[in-house]
């Protein structure tokens, strides 16, 4: 059996690969459930049915999916431009921090204008943090993967410092957390009885915007070409420097927005537990979604199902929580493996020698 490169990438497999990866992951999951002595159908139910079976459950799914989706949209732009922003988690944290800072300024007399201000602060914070990576890459050619990754840790520590120190709630018995934000700062909810905020609307708007940008605007085209074929893009006059900055600022801003939505939404204060790993999970979401705006939506929902399913698996099936990480990692592994089918095909037998020598 041999891997042979296809004459051109298979567009069938471009769409079928994530589905196949999911099926393989589910199959392994079934095997895992059985090996642990749990009913596999019940296991699948917990992961794929329970999270969507009621309006409340759907709402929670969207609450979880919103930050993943927003960050992944930004990362899609970034990765398509061949800029590897691994530090979305850090940008998320700084965005949350900036947003929290604005939220803390609010008191009982503040008007609802504070909400857009909070979101803007989040976007700004994320952009500024990603901007550091962009500048270091632009000016000094420093590898953006390592720089953005290091900045994740720095961001976490800054949050920690603020929450243990200057921003600690004076009435909070010295617990490391800020005071709960005033009610007026709450991101408006979509409907009563659910924690879903307008964040999901912003996210879906982002999906539309990204789709338009990538497939219908000249700028988007230029951005993508500079990622796929930098030499060609330079020849065509597209600035690769601009592409770098756009990529990082967009993904940083998106991550910061997600941070603001989380902090002024479900959490309602700044704690050391704000960094929830969404920045890293979003990388997987971006990949599973094939860096396509619509694909990313499905990928975000899928990942959220894994998260929530993992939680439920504990109380319904007595399965350990770590199973979530196992499934998520497996999904990505399988996806990456199945993606090979896009560029390569398997050949059982070596093709006859017509093409191997002479005519090249």
């Amino acid at each position: 059996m041999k891997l042979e490169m296809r004459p051109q990438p298979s567009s069938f497999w471009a769409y079928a690969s994530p589905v196949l990866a999911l099926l393989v992951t589910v199959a392994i999951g079934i095997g895992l459930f059985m090996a642990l002595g749990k009913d596999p159908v019940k296991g699948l139910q917990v992961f794929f049915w329970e999270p969507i079976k009621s309006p409340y459950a759907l709402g929670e799914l969207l609450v979880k999916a919103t930050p993943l989706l927003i960050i992944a949209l930004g990362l899609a732009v970034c990765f398509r431009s061949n800029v590897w922003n691994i530090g979305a988690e850090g940008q998320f944290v700084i965005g949350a921090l900036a947003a929290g800072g604005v939220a803390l300024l609010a008191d009982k007399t503040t008007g609802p204008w504070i909400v857009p201000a909070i979101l803007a602060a989040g976007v700004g914070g994320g952009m500024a943090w990603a901007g550091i990576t962009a500048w270091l890459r632009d000016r000094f050619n420093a590898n953006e993967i390592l720089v953005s990754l290091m900045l994740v840790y720095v961001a976490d520590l800054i949050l920690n410092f603020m929450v243990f120190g200057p921003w600690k709630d004076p009435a909070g018995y010295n617990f490391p957390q800020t005071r709960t934000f005033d009610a007026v700062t709450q991101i408006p909810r979509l409907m009563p009885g659910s924690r879903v905020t307008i964040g999901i609307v912003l996210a879906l708007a982002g999906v539309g915007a990204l789709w338009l940008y990538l497939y219908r605007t000249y700028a988007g085209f230029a951005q993508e070409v500079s990622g796929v074929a930098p030499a060609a893009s330079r020849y065509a006059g597209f600035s690769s420097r601009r592409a770098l900055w756009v990529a990082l600022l967009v993904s940083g801003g998106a991550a910061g927005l997600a941070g603001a939505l989380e902090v002024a939404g479900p959490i309602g204060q700044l704690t050391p537990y704000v960094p929830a790993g969404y920045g890293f999970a979003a990388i997987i979401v971006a990949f599973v979604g094939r860096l396509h705006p619509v694909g990313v939506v499905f990928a975000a929902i899928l990942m959220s199902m894994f998260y929530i399913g993992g939680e439920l698996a504990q109380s319904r099936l007595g399965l350990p929580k770590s199973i979530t990480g196992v499934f998520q990692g497996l999904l990505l592994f399988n996806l990456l493996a199945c993606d090979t089918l896009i560029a390569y095909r398997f050949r059982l037998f070596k093709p006859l020698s017509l093409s191997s020598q002479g005519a090249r």
Partner: protein
Amino acid sequence: MDSMALLLASTLSAGTVLAIASLGLLINEKSGIVNLGAEGMMLCAAIAGFATVIHTGNTWLGFAAGMAAGACLAAIFGVLVIWLGTNQYATGLALTLFGAGFSAFAGIRYVQEKLPEQTLYPIPVLADLPFIGPALFRQHPMVYIAMALTAGLVWFLYRTRAGLVLRSVGESPESAHALGYPVRRIRLAAVVAGGALCGLAGAYVSLVYTPLWVEGMIAGKGWIALALTTFATWRPARVLLGAYLFGGVTMLQFHLQGLGVNVPTQLLSMLPYLATIVVLVLISRNPLWIRVNMPTSIGKPFHPGA
């Protein structure tokens, strides 16, 4: 004086974990492959080693199990990245995520277990020397192995043919391929060797450094090891010194607290990361410096005859 000696001793111990993992990653990266899955490999190795010692009572078997676990995961990573051409960064991240979940999962029944009593290995005579005795000669053998590993790697990379081939694969896989070297196999070997060393470091954490198992116990040391490789500009001796430096910062922070000095701990904890960024900037801005220091083909996939 005595407490300085002890501080030095704990620094060496703390730095050993980082050093061994980082040397493994260095081998990887010298061949041009970045494995972001260090944390996942170390976690799986930690539980593999721990479980092995619980069942067999033999610490050295535990280390071997850790190395095997790391090597296995690295092999999977290697096949995906080198032969199937998957994106290195995404695959490495998947490895980290999977490794974290799997180790937590597999380790559930070991959480309250206790390891058999550890034997201490003070070096006779040398251990009783004033100051340097307690500082240097009352360590677990793994500390000395880390130093030997460093020396061995320097010799291998810069004094042997095989090391030269490895480095050339990292610099220009196309040229190496043209010269007839099996680039992909060499890269796989480097990845597996790197994984084995990360595994050794992971097992050291759960068997010697903090002899118990809890999920997530590597607590970011894998990422620091990745940073360290860059910080040390891919040179083994610098890796060892950098490891002690990074390890020392944590110990120093606690030491200062114990002395009553109130330094904001978060600021001190940031230092290794900020230092890495500074070094990265310094070596990257001069194109000549980059060529001299960083393996050129890092992160780029290689397809023979593609």
